[in-house]
């Protein structure tokens, strides 16, 4: 099982949700973060002094998936959250050792079903 974490633009959430739904991937968790990347942000100079804004609002989206779904989900998130502008964000994959569904106590694959 894997945990896919994606940092996306807040305005892209709806698109990503719809796209994930359309490939049958219903479960997801989302929260607000702020981030800075390598290039994004703006800066301006006033009388020799530089001012910079670099921490921008983003959303972090997490999906727990079976190993064999990873690529499809990855692709789906990538396509649906892309604008092509700097600041679109990153996706990472973490390994999940086990999962539990609180309601039933089911573990592993069954916890997701």
């Amino acid at each position, binding site marked *: 099982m894997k945990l896919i974490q994606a940092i996306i633009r*807040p*305005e892209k*959430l*709806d*698109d990503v949700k719809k796209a994930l739904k359309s490939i049958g991937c219903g479960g997801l968790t989302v929260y607000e973060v702020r981030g800075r990347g390598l290039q994004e942000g*703006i800066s301006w100079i006033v009388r020799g002094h530089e001012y910079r*804004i670099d921490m*921008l*609002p983003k959303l972090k989206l997490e999906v727990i998936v079976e190993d064999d779904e990873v690529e499809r989900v990855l692709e789906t998130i990538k396509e649906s959250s892309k*604008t092509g502008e700097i600041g679109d964000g990153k996706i990472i994959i973490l390994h999940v050792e086990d999962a539990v569904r609180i309601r039933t106590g089911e573990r592993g694959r069954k916890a997701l079903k």
Partner: protein
Amino acid sequence: MAGVDAGNTAWVLLSAALVLLMTPALGFFYGGLVRRKNLANTIMACFATVALVSVQWVLWGYSLAFGPDKMGLIGGLEWLGLNGVGLEPNPDYAETIPHQAFMIFQGMFAIITPALIIGAVVERIRFGALLLFIILWAKFVYDLIAHWVWASGGWLSNLGALDFAGGTVVHINSGVAALATALVLGRRLGYGTTSMEPSNVTYVVLGAVLLWFGWFGFNAGSALSAGMQATAAFVTTNTAASAAALAWMVMSWLHRGRASIIGTASGAIAGLVAITPAAGFVNVLGALTIGFGAGVLCYLAVMLRSRLKIDDSLDVWGIHGIGGTWGAIATGIFADPAVGGAAGALYGNAAQVLVQLTAVGVTWAYSFTATLAILKLLDKTVGLRVTPREEMMGLDLTQHAETAYS
């Protein structure tokens, strides 16, 4: 203090204070409706408008709008810097309060009118360009129309147009200008494809509530004395706002299966807009009708606007333009001579409707054209819109280097 009445002066000054509160309240109403990255900028735009137009008003605005009439079209420059606008009453405008009390009360209307247009430009206009727009619009659009309708000698006033507290001057004017603005400025990036949900419903309600509260000053204060007409205006204002809020709430319930909070708040504003020209002229049943009508009509106008994919982002046209138009015409229908001395169609004076239609038409036409001209000029010279990158990052950060809250 010959002629100055304490009760009336207290009334008009406190009404002015209430109306002042409306513009920042509008900032919260509008601010709650935009995405969080633009919330502080939206509030700031309204707040800065207060400061900007206040200064403009004492320097030249009041003179242009209410100064000695030149051919019914505009006031003269005799009252620049409030020269000659003193503390003695000016019987042309109000006999029992200091002239400056009338001036400052009117000033609050001059502030809120351009501020209303902000709802059409949020989330994408450069802050500096917005300030320039407001100062030019105040001068070339607001001051003129205010003169025509309200100044002694103004040509629409001479025609007999009824506008108790600003249906044409404030609401149609700003609503139509908003439409022009939305057309020139274009849609927000991602409009129609990405989600642009309001970020703070509680601010929308807070703003609406303070607007409602302030509107008592706006409408009832426009009687310029604390007596029967002010009371009538107070009662009709509250009644129309309530009826429209209920109407919009029910519309949203039927249409989307849930009673929308934002809808109910918007409905209240629509009712307040529609009753504005009528407040001191109609009775309470007239107010109920105007209110319910506003709730329904403005709801439909907003639906239509969204179908047309015009990004008048916060529906200034749908609420103020259409609500004001409905109110101005309804005034010609429902005006009850027992309330404010003027009779509408229902009381045998069908001609009033025609006069009202004239005032409405003139305001639509002039406001639309003049706003377009100002915007084109600014777009060509300083540029109206932020860059796409700034728009994506949000105006709070890019225009002010501050964020709403964390």
